[in-house]
Every structure is written in C-alpha cells, then in structure tokens.
C-alpha cells in the first residue's frame, strides 16, 4: 500500500539506514491531500536526500489511535517521531516525557516539552496574498471560500483570504464580495467532511450559480470538488491550499495560485536536523513558525495564469509580502499560532 510505501520506497531504498524517522498521522490518513500528506512528503524527501535515513508512517483513524501508534513508534525503535496535528500534541508530550532520549516533533501544535520540536505555520499570511490575488482577478466581483470543517487550521486560511480581499477593496477601491466566510462571526460554509468531494463539488456549483468566479476550498481532498467545478465552468478558476495545486493535483489549468504551507520543507528539515543531532550535532528543540519571512508559507507561482495576473498586481504582492515580513502589515487570525 502506498500509505505504507516506506517498506518499498523509503524502507527498501534505504534498507540499511541507521536512522529511523517515524510519523504518526492524524485522522484522514496519509493521503489526505492535506497536512498528513505534506508531512509525509517531507519525510520522504529527507530519506531521499540522506541515504542513511529511513522513514515509516502509522495512520490513525481517530484520536484514540494516537497513543498506541506513538507507543508503537517507540517500540519500533524510531529515532525521531513526528506527530501530525495539533490534537496530537498532548499525546506526543506524554510519550516524549516518558522517552526523554527520543526527539519528537509536533506539526501544527505547540509543545513546551524539551524533546518536542513544534512546527507551526502562520498560513493567514499566505492566504492573505491569495485573497489579494483573487480580488484582483475576479470578473464578477464575487469570490467564494468554503471549508471542510470549522477548525482553526482551516479557518486561518479563510481569515487571511478575507483580509486579503478587504485589503484589495481598500487599496484599489474595488468592491469584491467574499461568499462562504464571515470573518467577524467566524462562521461560514462547511461541508463537515474532508472526504466527500461530491459534496464539495455541489457546494462549489452552488457558489458558482451565486456568481462567484474564483473558488478557494479549504477542505483537503474534498476541495477537489471545487477544482472539478472550475474545470466544468470556463469562467471559473480556483485557488488551492497547503501545496502548489499545479503540481499536486490534475487541475493545474484551473489553479491561479496556491496558499502554500511549507510543511514538507519544515518536516524534511526537522528530520535532517534530528539526524544531525543523533550524529553529534545540536539537539533540535524549540519551536518553528513558518511565515512569509522564513519562507515557511508562501504563495505558489501563477503557472498557467502568469500572463493573466497583471504586473501591477505582482508588484503589489511583492510590496505586501515585504510589509508583512517587516511587520508593518499584520495579518491576524484568531487561529494564528500562539506559540512562544
């Protein structure tokens, strides 16, 4: 099975590797087209880069699987364990406290346990830029977002997106309307599943009939439904999240850009750092927050839409990026990482 690819890919390729890096997924599985999948990509990239590292993954179906899975990684003799999802942080803390010699990492969560490395992202920043692009590209003056489930890793994107649109309206005097998310009320359209792409499609169709011509689904695999809806409507396009959708989906032609979260890179770096630590380097510790400043979050290239996005807009985006990096512009979401 692919989820268990390490036995073939990572595992078999680097069969004699001395360093075993393990990952425990959140519910949704390793192929969730979202943080599990990105994290796993980072793990594999690390194994790719360093032949002495092999990687493996254990999937959880619910939070009740975290403990046995984490325990199993310890039993399997993993040298570094990555727990994906903020919900798992406490469980990671418990296992890490019991096994102070093993380094751990928690993705999308914050931990104060010394041997747990926190990996978080301020995706509101990249979503802000995506929202600004959307506002500049819409022909109908309406763009729409919808989410899988109303949880912070999802709504932080929607908040940033909404603020980006508001910024565009403010700076350029446009009146672009955002459907599907009310930032003040922190409420909007959620299909209450990350799996049901058909529901995502019909929700997207509904937004299209309401006049939206750019869709911003924040729903993992269910978001594919928005891409297919865009594919079926010539005038409609989409913005993807987490990864560069042009690369990771088959709908590159519909995707203006993506609000990327550099999970894979961060995880890869953490694995490599852990490897170094095990081989005499500095122990990895503390917390990492991905921002525009450290390239932890970004917006993807425009690919097919490169000519559609005006140079003016591109310049404005660069300027905004700079402002965010130097702190003159603050993109705030209630869901932003509250680390440190």
């Amino acid at each position, binding site marked *: *099975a*692919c*989820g*268990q*690819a390490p036995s*073939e890919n990572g595992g078999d390729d680097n069969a004699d590797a001395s360093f075993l890096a393990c990952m425990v997924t959140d519910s949704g*599985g390793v*192929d969730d087209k979202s943080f599990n999948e990105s994290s796993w990509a980072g793990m594999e990239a690390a194994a790719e880069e360093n032949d002495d590292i092999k990687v493996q993954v254990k999937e959880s179906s619910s939070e009740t699987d975290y403990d046995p899975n984490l325990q199993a990684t310890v039993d399997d003799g993993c040298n570094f364990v990555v727990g994906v999802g903020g919900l798992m942080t406490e469980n990671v803390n418990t296992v890490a406290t019991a096994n102070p010699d093993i380094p751990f990492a928690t993705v999308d969560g914050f931990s104060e346990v010394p041997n747990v490395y926190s990996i978080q992202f301020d995706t509101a920043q990249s979503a802000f830029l995506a929202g600004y692009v959307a506002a500049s590209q819409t022909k109908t003056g309406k763009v*729409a977002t*919808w989410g899988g489930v109303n949880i912070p890793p999802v709504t932080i994107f929607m908040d940033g997106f909404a603020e980006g649109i508001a910024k565009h309206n403010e700076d350029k005097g446009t009146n672009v309307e955002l*459907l*599907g998310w*009310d930032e003040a009320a922190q*409420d*909007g*359209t*959620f*299909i*209450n*599943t990350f*799996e*049901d*792409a*058909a*529901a995502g*499609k*019909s*929700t997207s*169709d*509904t*937004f299209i*009939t*309401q006049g939206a011509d750019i869709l911003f689904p924040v729903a993992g*695999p269910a978001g*594919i*439904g928005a891409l*297919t809806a865009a*594919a*079926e409507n010539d005038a409609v396009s989409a913005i993807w999240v987490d990864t560069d959708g042009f690369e990771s989906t*088959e709908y590159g032609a519909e995707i203006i850009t993506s609000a990327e979260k550099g999970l894979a890179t961060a995880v890869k770096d953490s694995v490599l750092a852990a490897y170094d630590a095990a081989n005499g380097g500095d122990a990895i510790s503390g917390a990492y927050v991905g921002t525009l400043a450290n390239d932890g979050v970004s917006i993807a290239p425009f690919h097919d839409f490169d000519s559609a996005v005006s140079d003016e807009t591109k310049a404005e985006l660069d300027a905004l990026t700079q402002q965010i990096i130097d702190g003159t512009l603050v993109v705030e979401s209630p869901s932003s990482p509250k680390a440190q």
Partner: protein
Amino acid sequence: MAVDTMTASPALVDETAPVRYAKAGGVLAALGLLLLVIAFAVIGGGDTTTISFDRTLTDVEWPLPTTACVAVFGAIAVAAGAWMLIGLPKRRFKLVSGIAVAAFVLGLLFWAYSQPGTVFRAESILAGALFLSLPYLFGALSGVICERSGVINIGIEGQFLMGAFTGVLVANITGNVYAGMAGAMIAGLLSTMLLALLATKYQVNQVVVGVILNLLALGFTSFMYDQLKKSEGLNSAFTVPTLSWGPLADIPVIGPVLFQQKIFVYIGLALVFVVWFLLYRTRWGLRTRAVGEHPAAADSMGVNVNRLRYWNVTLAGLISGFGGAWFTIANSLAFSKNMTAGLGFVALAVMIVGRWNPLGVLAGALIFGFTTQVARDLDAAGGALVPGEFLQMLPYAVTLVVVAGLIGKAKAPAADGVPYNPGDK
C-alpha cells in the same frame, strides 16, 4: 350494485366514499398552522422573497411579499389537513397530501429565501436537485429490482463503491469515459452476482450478505486505491460533457433542468420508466413480482424461483454499479476511499419511501436531491436562520417526517428477504 356476481368483496371498497385520515390530516393541519404562525408572527411585514430564473431570463427577478405567500401556503396546507380530517375520497388522498406537503415545503422555502442576500435561483437549484437525486435514483432502482424479486439488497453502498472505483480505473486504462461507465456497471454486476449466488444457491441470510458485501467493497476499494497510487495515471478524473439540446435548453425552467444535463440524468430518467414498464407490463415483470411476493406460488406454476432471483439481482447490479460511476465520472472526480459516504443506505430509504415502485422512487429521490440542494444553497448564501449543520440535516429530517407522518407502514414485497428452498431438490 352490479349483478356481475362473483366480483364479491372489492365492491366493498367504495373509492369515492369519504374516508377520514386522522393522523395525516392532523399532521398536515398542524404544519399549515405553523406556517401561518410563522407568516404573521415571525416574518417581517416588509420582507420579500426573490425568485429568479438565473440561466434563461437572467435579467428578471421577482420580489414577492413573503408574509402573504407563506400565509397562502399555510392556508393550503391547513385546508388539505382539514379535508382529510372531515373525510375525503380515498383516491384523492395521495394527490391532496402531495399538494399539502408541497405547500408546506414551499412555505418554508419562501421564508428561508426571505433573508437578505438570498435569491431563489429556481433553474440552478432545480437542475442541481435533479443531478443530486441521481445516486439515490440508481441505488433505489437497483434495490427495487432486487427486492421485487424477494432479495434484500442492503449492499448498494458497496456496489456504489465498486462502480465508482472501477469506473475511474477502466476509464483510465482505456482512456475512454464511456468504457469507464461500462466498467462501473460490470463491477456492480459482479458484486451483486455474489449476493445473488449466496442468497439463492447458498441460502445465506440476505441482510447479512449485504452488510458483508459493503464491508468487502470498502476494504477492497480502499486497499486497491492504495495499490493504484503506486502507478501514475490509473486514478485520474474523467468527465462526461454536459449535453445541451440547442434551443430547447433556452426554455425557462424546463430548459436548464431537462435539456442541459449530463448523460447520467437522461439515463436515470429513462431507467425509471424502463424499469416501471418491465415490472408492470411484461412477462418478466409479472414473474419477478410473483417471485418476490409468493415464491411458492410462482414455483408451483413452473417459474424457476431461484434462477429468476439470481439473474434479477445480478442484472440489478448493472444499475447500482452505474450509480457508482455517478460519484466519480458524473462529478468529474477521481476515486477516493469511502467516497460514497453512506449514500447507498440513503438510497435504500428512498426505495422504501418510493414503496418499491420506480415512479415512487423517482419522487423520493427528487425530494432528497431537492432538499440537499436547497440546504447547500442556503448554507452557501450565508446568513442562514440555522447553523449549517442543521441545514445539512434537512434531507434526513424531511425523510423522517415524510416516512413517519404520511407514508407510515410501507409494505415490502411479502417474500422480501426470505430465501426460497424448493423442497429438497
């Protein structure tokens, strides 16, 4: 009365004599009163409900006074309920209850769409509703054929999964989306064949087999999904074009709903009538219904009960398998694990709501498609009166009300689920 003597007791039932329907009448009258209360106590006097034909007459919008409209619908429902309480001719019951339910639903709709920023885009909503009703339609039609033959097919969910999966796989391998649809049908057929075999030859309890086949299909497709991901291009999305019937598509309402849809819609609608005709007008249908009602009677007239059941169930798989293709091909989606999300079970409910009759199934599927579509539309429109989760409950709640309030005890084919063992042969 007529002297044609032996007609005997059917003459007892006078179709025109008024009959009192206390329960249904009470429910409908109460619902109507509720609407009236809402109209005058909840809805603001100046509120309007805007209706638009958003695809054909794009410039026109009709703002209608909400209070007045809801009140009228309420009054209709109350009147219908009252008529039932007084007594109405038996053969009018279906029509009147249908009108009353429709009035109630319309009343709620008018209320819901009176919120600021919401417009009832009639054409998009109806067209979407028809499309969304398809999985229920295919699943329930397959169920109808099986259960009319006396075999409970609780494994529709599994057949959906197999169809959805195989449809994409075959389309990818052959590069032809129609081959994919055929593949989905074959996959459905193969999985119902297992049900047919176990239910007839091995006399296994059919509910049990169905539950197991669902589990098997889930396990198998999930497992294979992981296998497929190892190779590129075996699970890519395929699309079928939307067929636009030229000028017919520009007719208001009917055009976008009926003449601008994917081939799945036309196959679905055609199947309803084909299955109805086959069941009620052909030799096969007569025997099928006999086998589902009273297999021993059919057997005693020389009908090979288990063979007929076997083939009917097997062939019904073609329909549920095709319904599986809806999830992937009709939605232009690749396969993903457990993507049918329990709709196969809802299709079973639709089959029962439709009383094992293809026409009833069409009505039931449309109710589901419509409420799902409206719930999504309202949720997407924002500012909904209730949280999105409650809107998403709407189809299920409506089914509960319809089943409990109006349909009551639906009568399954008498031998449904009973293995037939002809003596000891």
